């Protein structure tokens, strides 16, 4: 395969059969359409290119900025496309809750604006919501923006009507699957594919999946939020079902670990929703039937999402010399000194004073002559062994004397003969009227 531009690599994604031993369906063949293998990483590459391409020449001429309301994948694809054409890109959203995605967008050169939250005190004089204001800004400024408008743009749906849908039929040797299962975000992919499949065979059944109302699954809307989408038409779906975040992650794990498909939570939600839906229908008939679901994007961008919801999945083996391993009794017995004792000790024995606070706090005010080793860095240091000579007395200080007691206990356990914690910390030091400097 040889291409002149990366955008030519959009589409023609593989359709991969899921091993029946994994999903457990006896009479239904289940296939995953791997949209995660598009060049910018997701199903949105198609829509982004379809929406932007016809407008690019003019935008380049006028130096317009590309803008979209997007929390992730569309923004990613548009940021790349805009960059390739020397244009800026701005994403406006209040749904971007996964930090890696924000960082990746910034890396790709995107500008991100977060919409303000709801008012805590209802303001009866408020005339417009932030989204209405956004649309007004866009139309007021004429041609300064190329707004792709993914929730209302028919070219979003069309990309899947002419691409994704026919590809599925082609890879099933001209047959239309009995079921098509897709998560609903902009409704573009589900609507486009559903339309393409129905044109071939109206008996296909379409399952739309949304996020459970109180849950957040990146890229999917809830049953109410889909109503705000211009491309959404309830008639498209034979049934709408909801998936919880936990279920999406469960499905994702199965795809990742057992199928070798490194899809993200929406792919997981689609897999989970598909199997749950199909299992209930399997008894209907003994005929062999086929179902297809979409894996929208890749797992790598969602590690912090997983860490927040399922920290157990990211468990690591315990570390050496960690303050977390100390018992309360050990911490309680950590050698410590009061402010008055510390001041005398500093006068007489000149211990190394280590301030464990952040560099910003240290820079603002600290004990004269102390060194700053931020606690996180200190934890790294001691993992490899004692960072000070045994002959060097050490006074550890933190805000209230809690962390320093832990580290004093740890260093003592590691064999340091004279390390002490400043009882009550820098706060006690200040409250006792002892000098703090800024140098």
């Amino acid at each position, binding site marked *: 395969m040889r291409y002149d531009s990366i955008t030519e690599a959009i589409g023609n994604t593989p359709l991969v059969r899921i091993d029946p031993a994994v999903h457990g369906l006896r009479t239904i063949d289940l296939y995953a359409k791997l949209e995660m293998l598009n060049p910018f990483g997701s199903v949105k590459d198609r829509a982004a290119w379809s929406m932007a391409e016809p407008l690019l020449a003019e935008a380049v001429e006028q130096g317009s900025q590309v803008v979209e309301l997007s929390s992730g994948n569309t923004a990613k694809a548009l940021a790349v496309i805009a960059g390739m054409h020397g244009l800026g890109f701005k994403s406006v959203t209040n749904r971007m809750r996964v930090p890696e995605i924000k960082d990746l967008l910034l890396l790709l050169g995107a500008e991100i604006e*977060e919409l*303000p*939250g709801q008012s805590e005190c*209802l303001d009866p004089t408020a005339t417009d919501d932030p989204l209405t204001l956004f649309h007004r800004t866009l139309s007021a400024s004429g041609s300064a923006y190329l707004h792709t408008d993914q929730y209302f743009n028919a070219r979003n749906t069309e990309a899947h009507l002419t691409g994704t849908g026919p590809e599925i039929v082609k890879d099933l040797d001209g047959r239309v699957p009995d079921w098509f299962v897709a998560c609903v975000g902009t409704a573009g992919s589900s609507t486009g594919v559903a339309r393409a499949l129905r044109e071939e065979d109206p008996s296909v059944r379409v399952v739309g999946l949304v996020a459970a109302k*109180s849950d957040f699954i990146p890229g999917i809307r809830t049953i*109410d939020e889909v109503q705000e*989408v211009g491309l959404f038409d309830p008639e498209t779906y034979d049934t709408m079902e909801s998936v919880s975040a936990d279920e999406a992650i469960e499905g994702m794990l199965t795809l990742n670990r057992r199928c070798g498909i490194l899809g993200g939570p929406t792919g997981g939600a689609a897999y989970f929703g598909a199997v749950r839906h199909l299992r209930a229908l399997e008894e209907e008939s003994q005929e062999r039937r086929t179902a297809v679901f979409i894996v929208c994007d890749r797992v790598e961008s969602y590690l912090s999402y997983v860490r927040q919801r399922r920290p157990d999945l990211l468990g690591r083996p315990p570390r050496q010399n960690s303050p977390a391993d100390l018992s309360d009794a050990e911490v309680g017995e950590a050698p410590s000194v009061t402010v008055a004792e510390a001041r005398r000790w500093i006068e007489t024995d000149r211990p190394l004073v280590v301030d464990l606070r*952040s560099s910003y706090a240290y820079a603002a*005010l600290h004990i004269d002559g102390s060194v700053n080793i931020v606690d996180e860095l200190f934890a790294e240091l001691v993992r490899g062994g004692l960072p000070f000579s045994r002959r060097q007395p050490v006074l550890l200080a933190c805000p209230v004397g809690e962390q320093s007691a832990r580290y004093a206990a740890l260093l003592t356990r590691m064999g340091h003969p004279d390390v002490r914690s400043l009882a009550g910390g820098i706060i006690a030091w200040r409250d006792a009227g002892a000098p703090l400097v800024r140098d």
Partner: protein
Amino acid sequence: MDGRPLYLEPRLEPRLRSLVAAQNTLHSLTDGLGSPLHVVVPDQIAENLERFRSVYRAHHLSGQVFYAHKANRSSALLRRLAATDAGVDVASLGELQHALGAGFGAGRITATGPKNPEFLWLAARTGVTVSVDAVAELDQLATLVRKHALAPVRVLLRLSGFETTGVKVLSRRSRFGTPVGELELLLEAAERHADAVDPAGVAFHLDTTSVAEKATALEGSLAALELCRSRGLRPRAVDIGGGFGISYLAEREHWEAYTTGLTEAVLGRRPPLTWGGHGYGLRNESGTLRGTLGLYPAHRSVAGAAYLDELLAQPAASLGGRPLAALLLEHLYDLHTEPGRALLDQCGLTLARVLEVRAQDTGGELLVRLAAKADDIALEDHGVLMDPVVIPRGGAGPGGGPVAVHLFGSLCLETDLITRRTVFLPRRPEPGDLLAFANTAGYAMDFHATRAQHQPAARKVAAWQDGDAWRWCLDDQFWPITPLRGAQ
């Protein structure tokens, strides 16, 4: 879902639950004092304060919790709080006088909001901390201090318009505070007035439910404090205002089912759920839902002290990614908060007598008229949707299953609707029954109340538990040492 009642059952914690169950007491109170009637529960505010304190303790933070007085005029609540170690945030001359009279020493009072000269003078005279909005206010305050030979006044510099790097967090524009970009001007003024004012730190209050916006502001405040220090000032505190919220409803499912029902009703897929098809900000544009739901998010997984906890756990990207709480602690700053609504969670209810229950010729909802005006029960004004609890006059009442009703007030005005939505009640109310609107203490009791058309504004009583019984007195008669206050 069509036709099935969509309940929005209030969240009742044990104290308020017990009060709602004291049906005879509530009837005899309204028999004696009229309808509508507000009942406040002062002991609850002390318990809520303790929840905020425990968040401070968990993060080792010192500083004051200032009750935002604006949310309720009650003397009983204020005096009960005066008996704790809390502070109070006053936003007017009247509130300041009230706080001083309730027993708050000046060291426990902070003055915020728009200030007239009398308010400024009394604050300066008594030694209250003043949250200064702008250079002009600082000038005005300094002039007062000099002219009347007062001691230097402790001030917090109130900021707004915080900005982020990387991801831009848009924020609603505020009328209050000086944009952080103009902090230098404010500091120059503070230096000019060094003889009259003592800048103790910075402050902000953002009217938003968004934790991200507040985290941005708190991070920006830390940077502002650093700027103060670099100019040789010795700031000690940051005041992050209020807005920690209440979760009003008992069941998340109720809230979800209701808002979905409302969406469907707006799109014409089910019968209207409101008087006149009002959409609470939502509208139907050729089959697509537009607008924003203008309702208080009445069920929340995180509110009040837990919201503060979540805010403090946010990482500060520009300061090495450490949690905000750790940064406050490490910098030795006091944290001040000004919860209004959140401190009043579960602190009271409003009673209204049913005057008339009328069936419409067309069938449908019952029209229920209450002895109260909409402004006496201002939940709807704040976008809080929550069902009242029916307190029958004679024991269990006739029953007969769920009904849908519209609740109207007693004013001769089409707009005097206690609720704009159809309310589902588990049984038909009868004239003489009481409806108890729970959790009205935050902004929904007296914030809007008028005496229009010579109709009385609700009276207020304070109630407390004495063993199994509820005791009460007029709000104004309540002092923390009131006899028969039981264990207190």
